[in-house]
């Protein structure tokens, strides 16, 4: 440990963190939507004098939200689930005043050294589905206050940055990341080390590393999850990326309106400046690096790498032609590199534990973990960091706890609206970038939406295509017109108005979009349909080619769509 960093850590450690009672309330998007703010408000109004009340992100167990975590000095932390105002009154009365933990409300406990296990509640590390995880990028979820620099330092934060800057060369760091097999978690799964080496090889004085937290994929909430829970892990990864690629500037790019991620990112950046971890001569290493939080308006395509650069420059987020590639001329015409939030959040762990440790997790070609967001008709909805190599079936049954509607699982929608659909035949596939792609869907950024037997595939695909149509930036016509045309045809199919040849037309349009579009939005826009045709072609054929008039009730009404579209 370098002398400067040691001083910083000692300063943090010299403070008193030993509260008699500490109550943590989960405050992520999911916790909020489940009502955690009411519980937090009640606690601050009625309990503030008796203990410390703190907002934390979320453990990822969304289906148990709102979760309240109570630590009485000398006892294990007790976690209570589905807490509302009525329950929290009971819990505080019984547990804090009478030492009676209510086992009907408590679902897990977390034991620290020297503490005695409470009866009848499992330890969190053995709790299903929590136990299937290997938490690397999400290791601090639900643990630390995301706004506290000190708490991050106390969990060993910025140790990897110090190690990188003061005992490794940029080349060493790059080598380590390359050897770890880390691949991009933003969709394309490209080797992070190799991508960094393109930028590192460019000797320009001003170079950018950009962090992509646009996260427009419906069904995915893990990037925002990282910023809601632990923004410093991402920032540490970003600074290390800057060092390895010998860059001068970084941007964290977030969509406007996501207020908690934005505020957390800004606070983290400010605290890092105040503590000498950003700016000039970081930790006395001679390395200078500046980071700024940039906001974009609502536009899905702004998440595409060159469109993102346009947005930071304040223009319409439309993709650029390539070449030149970003590593030659990116943001403001300067060499740039772009990575997803999750990708960068693995980096501190890799530097601390070594490439080999990371490679040991997962499969041969997909090392490490996937941060999966489970939603839809499944019991254990939430966000889980699971090593690659698990089968889809195990993911659904063991982690997900099976169908929540009792109707059995029919399909998965993975990888966002440019991803695909998987049917039952594919549930034996293992989770791995290649295997999933082979099966017809991509893992993408990790959103998995589960649909039960009642889900109408054609109607679901229409929803995805409607999204793609709504979000097309309009720059190239195969995407702009292709999506519009495909949506028309799917709308007809859902309203029993298909015209002869519709299915063939869709296929033709889709294939043309694949080869003729400027960016991934159009190139991948046919994926939802092509993958659905693989598993559910009969449903399409029934709806689109038989032209039988069914009874009025089976018709699906016209879809309600946004009207504020792009001119």
């Amino acid at each position, binding site marked *: 440990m370098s002398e400067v960093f040691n001083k910083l850590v000692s300063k943090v450690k010299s403070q008193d963190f030993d509260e008699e009672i500490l109550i943590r309330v989960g405050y992520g998007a999911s916790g909020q*939507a489940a009502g955690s703010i009411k519980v937090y408000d009640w606690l601050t109004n009625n309990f503030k004098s008796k203990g410390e009340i703190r907002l934390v992100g979320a453990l990822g167990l969304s289906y148990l939200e709102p979760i309240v975590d109570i630590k009485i000095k000398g006892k294990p932390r007790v976690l209570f689930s589905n807490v509302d105002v009525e329950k929290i009154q009971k819990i505080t009365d019984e547990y804090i005043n009478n030492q009676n933990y209510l086992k009907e409300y408590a679902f897990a406990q977390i034991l620290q050294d020297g503490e005695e296990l409470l009866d009848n509640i499992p330890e969190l590390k053995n709790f299903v589905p929590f136990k299937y995880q290997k938490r690397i990028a999400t290791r601090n979820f639900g643990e630390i206050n995301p706004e506290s620099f000190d708490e991050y330092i106390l969990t060993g934060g910025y140790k990897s940055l110090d190690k990188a800057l003061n005992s490794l060369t940029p080349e060493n760091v790059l080598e380590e990341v390359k050897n770890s097999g880390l691949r991009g978690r933003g969709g394309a799964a490209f080797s992070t080390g190799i991508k960094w080496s393109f930028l590192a090889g460019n000797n320009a004085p001003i170079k950018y590393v950009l962090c992509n937290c646009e996260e427009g994929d419906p069904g995915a909430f893990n990037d925002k999850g990282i910023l809601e829970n632990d923004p410093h892990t991402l920032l540490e990864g970003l600074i290390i990326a800057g060092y390895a690629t010998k860059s001068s500037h970084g941007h964290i790019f977030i969509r406007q309106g996501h207020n908690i991620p934005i505020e957390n990112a800004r606070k983290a950046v400010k605290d890092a400046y105040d503590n000498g971890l950003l700016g000039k001569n970081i930790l006395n290493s001679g390395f200078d690096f500046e980071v700024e939080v940039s906001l974009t308006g609502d536009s899905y395509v702004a998440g595409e790498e060159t469109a993102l650069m346009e947005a930071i420059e*304040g223009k319409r987020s439309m993709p650029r032609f390539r070449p030149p590639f970003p590593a030659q001329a990116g943001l403001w015409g300067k060499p740039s590199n772009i990575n997803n939030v999750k990708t960068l959040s693995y980096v501190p762990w890799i530097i601390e534990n070594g490439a080999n440790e990371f490679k040991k997790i997962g499969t041969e070609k997909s090392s490490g973990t996937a941060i999966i967001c489970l939603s839809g008709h499944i019991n254990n909805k939430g966000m889980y960091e699971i090593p690659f190599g698990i089968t889809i079936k195990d993911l659904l049954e063991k982690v997900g706890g099976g169908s929540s509607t009792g109707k059995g699982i029919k399909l998965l929608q993975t990888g966002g609206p440019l991803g695909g659909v998987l049917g039952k035949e594919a549930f034996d596939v293992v989770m791995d970038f290649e295997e999933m792609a082979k099966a017809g869907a991509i893992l993408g950024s990790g959103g998995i939406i589960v649909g039960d037997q009642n889900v109408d595939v054609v109607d679901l695909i229409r929803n995805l295509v409607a*999204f793609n149509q709504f979000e097309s930036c309009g720059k190239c016509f195969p995407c702009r017109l292709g999506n519009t045309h495909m949506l028309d045809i799917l709308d007809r199919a859902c309203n029993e108005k298909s015209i002869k040849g519709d299915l063939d037309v869709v296929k033709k349009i889709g294939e043309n979009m694949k080869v003729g579009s400027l960016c991934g939005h159009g190139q991948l826009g046919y994926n939802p349909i092509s993958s659905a045709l693989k598993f559910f072609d009969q449903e399409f054929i029934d709806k689109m080619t038989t032209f039988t008039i069914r009874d009025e009730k089976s018709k699906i009404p016209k879809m309600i769509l946004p009207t504020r579209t792009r001119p």
Partner: protein
Amino acid sequence: MNTNSKNNNLRSDIREILNSENKKSSKESSPPKTVTVLSCLLSVQDNFHYIPDEAIEEIADFMDKTINDVWGVASFYTNFRFSPPGSYSLDICWGPTCHISGAQEILRGIHKKLGIDTETETKDGKISLGYSTCLGACAQAPVYAIDHHLIGNASVENIMDTIKELK
């Protein structure tokens, strides 16, 4: 107040917002701040909850761009609106998880109850209805938001109850 001086006040408010965009932190070591047409538009909408016509001209002037340049950006991003919103925003998610959890029925029900049939304001000016592509709380689907405050497990009834509680 005549319209002219009202207009001048609006313009000076806008200019004040834009000037504060450019303010540098007094601290020696602090995050850089890039000012762009988009960042100006975002600040104006944060303050006014919509983009007045005057703001387009002021931003063009401030950034040394044409009005066309600024309009081009403002009309592209779907979060910008060009007329004052209702007292509260109601955003209902139509993303895929919410879709398979009944979002379309909720939208239809809410249309009926509010007496509108698209993304617009209610007659009394209380509610601005919008559709969201995903509110990021898919695990609690169907999801809606009142003034960006997320609420899960939506139904026509509980959305209407929430609206009734708003003053």
